């Protein structure tokens, strides 16, 4: 290859012509939740692909919290999110749950319940319940976590399937003052421009 970029010119030539990726080397899918401020609830922001939940956590931090305020994130395998029907209009997703009778002998676990309160927006953490299955967790959410507004979609996630931010990791989001170059506010050139324009005006006159 003949490039303007010396680094490109130094690249090795390929031993074979690659036009397709090796089949199925894609990684797993993990859902990412972000807490922007101390007193705000976690909200769903998107996904990353990773080989395991630890790498997913690292990639989530890079992808979703480089620029925005953040105090904490967590990730979970997409397969660990139990999802209700998505409704619209005046239909409450909680009213579409299939009938379910929990087995009283099952072991109880914590579940996080997420609500979609406005279609088009993100799922937001509504609270925590204890249940033996995600179905039961949703029923408990229906009883305890609604505040009158219709819920268009409910997610239930077993807390043990979640990779939380550990207290000692909170420093990840303490941006150093010398990293201001990542903010638009660090690029003030107004004075320089004003001086230049005034000078140009003089020259033209």
């Amino acid at each position, binding site marked *: *290859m003949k*490039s*303007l*970029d010396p*680094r*490109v010119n130094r*690249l*090795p030539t*390929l031993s074979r012509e*690659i*036009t*397709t*990726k*090796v*089949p*199925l*080397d*894609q*990684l*797993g*899918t993990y*859902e990412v939740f972000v807490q922007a401020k101390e007193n705000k609830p976690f909200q*769903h*922001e*998107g*996904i*990353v*692909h990773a*080989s*395991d939940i630890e*790498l997913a956590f690292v990639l989530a931090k*890079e*992808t*979703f919290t*480089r*620029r*925005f305020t953040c105090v904490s994130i967590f990730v979970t*395998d*997409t*397969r660990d999110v139990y*999802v209700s029907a*998505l409704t*619209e209009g005046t239909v409450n997703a909680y009213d579409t749950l299939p009938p379910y009778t929990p087995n009283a002998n099952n072991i109880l676990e914590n579940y996080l319940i997420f609500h979609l309160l406005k*279609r*088009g*927006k*993100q*799922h937001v953490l509504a609270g925590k319940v204890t249940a033996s299955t995600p179905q039961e967790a949703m029923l408990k959410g229906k009883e305890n976590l609604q505040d009158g507004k219709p819920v268009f979609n409910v997610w239930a996630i077993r807390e043990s399937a979640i990779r939380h931010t550990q207290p000692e990791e909170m420093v990840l989001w303490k941006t150093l003052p010398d990293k201001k*170059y*990542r903010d*638009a*506010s660090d*690029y*003030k*050139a107004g004075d*320089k*421009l004003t*001086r*230049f*324009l005034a000078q140009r005006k003089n020259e033209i006159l």
Partner: protein
Amino acid sequence: MYGGGNTFEAIRTDSLAQEDPEKLAAFEAKIERGEKIEPTDWMPALYRKQLIRMIEQHAHSEIIGALPEGTWITRAPGFKRKLSLMAKVQDEVGHAQLLYSAAETLGKTREQMIDDLLSGKSKYSNIFNYPAFTWADSCFISWLVDAGAIVNQLANAKGSYGPYCRALERICAEESFHLKYGHHCVIFLATGTDKQRQMFQEAINRWWAPMMHFFGPSDKISAHTEILMKWKVKMGTNDDMRNQFLDMYVPKIWELGFTLPDPNLKKNPTTNKWEYTEPDWEEFKRVINGEGPCNKERIEVRRIAEERGRWVREALKAPQAAYVTPLA
């Protein structure tokens, strides 16, 4: 960047005859009311296909767009500029991540999208098939190509598909840093030595034609996309977007004392629209179809990255992880 200059083929609407008319009417009414469509909602096959195509092109444009600018990181003038450009390029690659994820919610795997980029089946923004000769070219990209992209992305953020809109909201917030950084770089060149001013003028001369191409073929000759406008997949015509860009940035370029290489460029005071020499759409087509100065290099760099990264992916492969379609 770089949600711009999407190429749309002529849309064949015959598949709509196979859709359930009642569901189709409800779908269109929902969009008309300004509501968003979510991945598990009913949607016509044509809507899904066109959205995948558009979001995927946008994602490819972000990673390919990182290449001409990435070239300049090591040669950016000074430590601070290197840090800034590195942060910007990292953002662009991050944008690709967000956009691939949004496209994946429609059912195309990321693997398939990368395959289609490598094989040339999927396109990306044409402008990245041109080389960045000097530092000034890199400044032109950061300020003006990003500005063009922002015009498109702000419009598309009001579109109908929820996951794409949400990705774009995050992207637009980050773009404000790119725009400010790019403008800052250009002001430094513009207020610098004669040599620096000349460098930027030459960059403008090189990039103006690709910049005009960026918004896609003129409405007079471009494929009919009324149905995509109705479904809020496409949020404005190519000429509208181009006009918006010219309106916002031509005065800023002129203010700095630079010229634009088009003697016919002026705003018509009666129509309030910009007039310009019709861009060379034959050149645009040639470049899209692989004949641009850097098409081969861009794809080759991606292929080499794919090949050289293979052992990493293999080493990481864990049996318990599985690809599944993202939720939202």
